[in-house]
């Protein structure tokens, strides 16, 4: 049986004005478990707190109820008071008789009656309270960044600068991501490579950063502060530490017909290759799908020409297991497939290209050496049509495309149009748009310059159809403002394809038990207040894997994610919220219902041997809650049919006791 003290606060006249506090204290004195019931002017004042402190000591109280303002106001205060008097802070309950009673009722009699009932409910609850202690877990002071694009690089750099070791895992042979493929960047028109490659080098040389390129995350176990991650280092058949990146092998390799994915397959590379000149790490990789040596055992040219003796055809995939305290997802995006949008003739003509392909065509390191030439015949295009929103902003029920705005297309299309007109003033450039969205610093100015200074034809309307006719592309489109249907004979059509999260994000989310939205973007813990954290503790989000983003936004989010990671890794121990779920193993039947509703992946299952009531032994699968990960929402407690799962601090028995007290 508890020994409960009840303390009714006047809050000046805030409570006492509408509630007869003396009557409340008197009425609650006879409730089960109550040994002392008293009132005071201001319970939260030092004098009030001292009074509680004294009462706890003198009466050996095991629990207290404070009838006062909202627990959102002073619960923490009274918990501290209790703790100072040697009472477990979770043996305190608050009856909210100010915000939810005296302030909303006018009649003294009614207010007093309700305050007594609220007090009774709190007493009924505290009778069932048990002392709770927050759990502590140590933190592995090391971070993992998954994805080596600008988001991943920036996050890693910021974390590393704060003194914590970071691993970057990148599936491609080089870091750099999409930004490495870009030509110029809006709205300043800096060259992408000029601002990105120094960061890549900095990452490579940073003493706290290790780059695991050509690697994939295979499995993630554990929880905040204590993740164990399996990483597969794919065999690149080149000894990374020995290769000097001289590139001789990539010139001598006889297999020349390998589509070059870095240039979006608009030209070819060799079977042994370095994706681009500034790749980091700058080491060659053999593509096993094309290498004659690996496929037939005959060739070996690269090994012969390599002076460093770095080629190793016998290399195998390697699995490594590492421990981390925090994980950052930075898996980025891809343009969506243009296959379903055949009205634009993407599959019918080489001269219908996506914007990313256009980037490569404009890039000095691209397939055309930076000259804008038609992929079909290498001729200079005179009329270029840009189509916006291809696959973006589609209805949720449409059979193709994405519902969201891809956010970056308006600006890069303005950039493309501007650059084209700048380099080739003899070209006619049309941009078909639905809306031009430019909410960013210097963005609208940039777009206006494209129109006003560079003479880009912006047409409000959509292209309905593109049909190749001879070496021309017949573009049929509507000009809504002129209420006309336009027919343009174009040489090149550029589609601003919607972007979607990288395919690796979904399996990663499953491994992380991080939630995703219907479009496979990672969900943030709170859309406004916790935008760079996943709801799963210890998992952070950086870049376009969380939603479409341009470079400045990506970099700022990357920094924010890094700050959150640093904040976590700076702690030696994590103190949890003790109001967490717990499973009674004797009642649990291992059905997984709780696991499925847990937003944090806090529930795992173990198979244990139990001695059953009938004296037999049985292996049973039972749920275990990781108290460091559980946030205490209680979804599992209702999903569990047997009631094996309960929530500390808000136990079913406590809530039902409150219900009983209120309905009396």
């Amino acid at each position: 049986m508890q020994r409960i003290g009840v303390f009714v606060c006047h809050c000046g006249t805030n409570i006492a004005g509408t509630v007869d506090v003396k009557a409340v204290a008197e009425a609650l004195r006879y409730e089960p478990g109550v040994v002392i019931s008293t009132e005071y002017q201001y319970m939260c004042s030092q004098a009030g707190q001292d009074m509680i402190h004294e009462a706890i000591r003198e009466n050996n109280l095991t629990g207290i109820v404070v009838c006062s303002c909202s627990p959102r106001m002073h619960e923490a205060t009274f918990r501290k008071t209790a703790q100072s008097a040697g009472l477990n802070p979770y043996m305190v309950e608050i009856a909210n008789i100010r915000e939810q009673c005296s302030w909303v009722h006018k009649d003294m009699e009614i207010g007093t009656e309700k305050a007594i009932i609220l007090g009774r409910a709190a007493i009924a609850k505290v009778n069932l309270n048990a002392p709770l202690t927050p759990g502590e877990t140590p933190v592995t002071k090391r971070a993992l960044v998954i994805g080596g694009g600008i988001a991943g690089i920036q996050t890693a750099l910021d974390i590393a600068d704060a003194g914590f070791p970071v691993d970057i895992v990148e599936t491609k042979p080089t870091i750099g991501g999409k930004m490495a493929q870009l030509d110029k960047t809006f709205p300043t028109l800096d060259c992408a490579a000029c601002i990105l490659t120094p960061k890549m080098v900095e990452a490579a040389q940073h003493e706290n950063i290790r780059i695991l390129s050509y690697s994939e995350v295979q499995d993630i176990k554990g929880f905040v502060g204590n993740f164990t991650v399996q990483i597969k280092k794919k065999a690149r058949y080149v000894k990374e530490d020995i290769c000097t990146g001289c590139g001789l092998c990539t010139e001598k390799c006889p297999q020349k017909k390998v589509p070059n994915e870095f240039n979006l397959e608009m030209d070819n590379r060799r079977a042994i290759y370095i994706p681009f000149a500034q790749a980091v790490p700058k080491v060659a990789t053999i593509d096993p799908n094309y290498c004659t040596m690996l496929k037939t055992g005959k060739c070996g040219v690269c090994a012969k020409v390599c002076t460093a003796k770095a080629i190793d055809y016998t290399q195998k995939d390697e699995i490594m297991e590492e421990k981390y305290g925090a994980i950052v997802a930075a898996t980025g995006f891809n343009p969506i497939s243009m296959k379903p949008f055949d009205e634009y003739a993407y599959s019918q003509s080489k001269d219908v290209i996506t914007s990313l392909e256009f980037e490569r065509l404009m890039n000095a390191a691209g397939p055309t050496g930076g000259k804008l030439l038609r992929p079909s015949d290498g001729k200079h295009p005179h009329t270029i049509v840009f189509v916006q929103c291809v696959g973006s902003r589609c209805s949720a029920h449409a059979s193709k495309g994405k519902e969201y705005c891809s956010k970056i297309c308006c600006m890069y299309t303005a950039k493309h149009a501007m650059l084209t007109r700048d380099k080739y003033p003899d070209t006619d450039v049309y941009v078909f748009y639905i809306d031009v969205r430019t909410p960013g610093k210097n963005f609208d100015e940039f777009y206006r310059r494209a129109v006003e200074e560079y003479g880009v034809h912006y047409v409000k309307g959509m292209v309905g159809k593109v049909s190749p006719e001879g070496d021309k592309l017949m573009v049929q489109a509507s000009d809504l403002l002129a209420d006309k249907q336009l027919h343009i004979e174009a040489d090149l059509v550029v589609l601003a394809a919607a972007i979607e999260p990288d395919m690796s994000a979904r399996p990663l989310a499953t491994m992380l038990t991080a939630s995703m939205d219907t479009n496979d973007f990672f969900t943030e813990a709170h859309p406004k207040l916790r935008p760079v954290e996943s709801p799963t503790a210890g998992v952070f989000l950086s870049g376009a894997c969380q939603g479409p983003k341009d470079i400045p936004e990506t970099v700022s989010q990357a920094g924010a994610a890094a700050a959150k990671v640093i904040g976590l890794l700076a702690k030696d121990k994590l103190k949890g919220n003790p109001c967490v779920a717990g499973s009674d193993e004797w009642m649990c039947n291992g059905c997984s219902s709780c696991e499925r509703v847990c937003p944090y992946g806090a529930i795992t299952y173990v198979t244990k041997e139990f001695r059953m009531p009938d004296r037999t032994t049985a292996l049973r699968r039972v749920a275990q809650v990781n108290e460091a990960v559980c946030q205490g929402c209680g979804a599992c407690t209702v999903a569990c049919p047997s009631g094996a799962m309960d929530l500390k601090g808000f136990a079913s028995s406590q809530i039902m006791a409150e219900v009983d007290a209120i309905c009396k």
Partner: protein
Amino acid sequence: MQKVTREILLAKAAELLAAGTVNRVLGWKAGEFTYDVTPALFTTAAELEKDFVYGPFSGANFSKYLVKETRRDEGKVLVFLKPCDTYSFNQLLTEHRFDRERVYAVGIPCDGMADIQRIKDQAGDGVSGVECDGDNLIVHTLYDGDKTLAMADCLAERCVNCKSKKHVAYDELIGETGDVIDSHRFDEVEKLEKMTEDERFAFWQNELSRCIRCNACRDVCPACTCEKCVFGNPNSGVENKAISDSFEEKMFHVIRAFHVAGRCTDCGECSRVCPQNIPLHLLNRKFIRDIDNFYDEYQAGAEVGQRAPLVNYKQEDLEPSEAVERSGNNA
């Protein structure tokens, strides 16, 4: 379609026992009067030969026994599964209630099982034996001689409204599997929905008032496999051994149906075993119908590993305030 007979099943069981594939068989054991068949475990061919039966009263769903059975022994157990049983089987697997490796499941086709109560309603009390004769049953009675009844008129309610002749799980199939059936199983629910609130209340008050809390519905239910039921757990705060107020009838049956909502495969065992003839399956079917109506159509047990509707959500799900109207309840 191959007609399944006792001989075929016996031969299959004997074969699997002899081959060492299984070391015991979960089957039906003959009783006193043909119709009182008991689920039983057989370990030898001789035992099977002596007592194993298969016929219109071999209706018991064995799936739930697998929970206990697979915990007992290292070897495999042979279980015969009718199409409806395979759904329970899958649902139990989804919930990790038994080890699939310890079971050898043989799917058998089913044309529906007989309900002795329906036979007695037609043939009168004093049924001393029932024989199968093609599509008819010949019923031997104590006082009125033999009577011939069409099997179709003797089917159990759950078989009249059979939802599927398709086996969704098995290691081996005897005969052929069938299709999911577009059944009329929701007709009765719909009839109740169309009543007024008052009529529905009167209906359920009358039905549930007969409940004696014997817990047969719970104990037979393949979805009710909790190690300890909340209603039998003195620490749960809602335990009750008997119904001493009509509130408790509602509490028990609503919560029981809620706990199996989205997990109930509609196997119909609850109503079959109710000694008081309460149409408990209607509560489960109401949940199934609402789930189909509110969310996506869902058949528990159709696949292993499905995410049950109550542990799932969509952002555009309907609001509770719209539920009553959408559910078709006349309110």
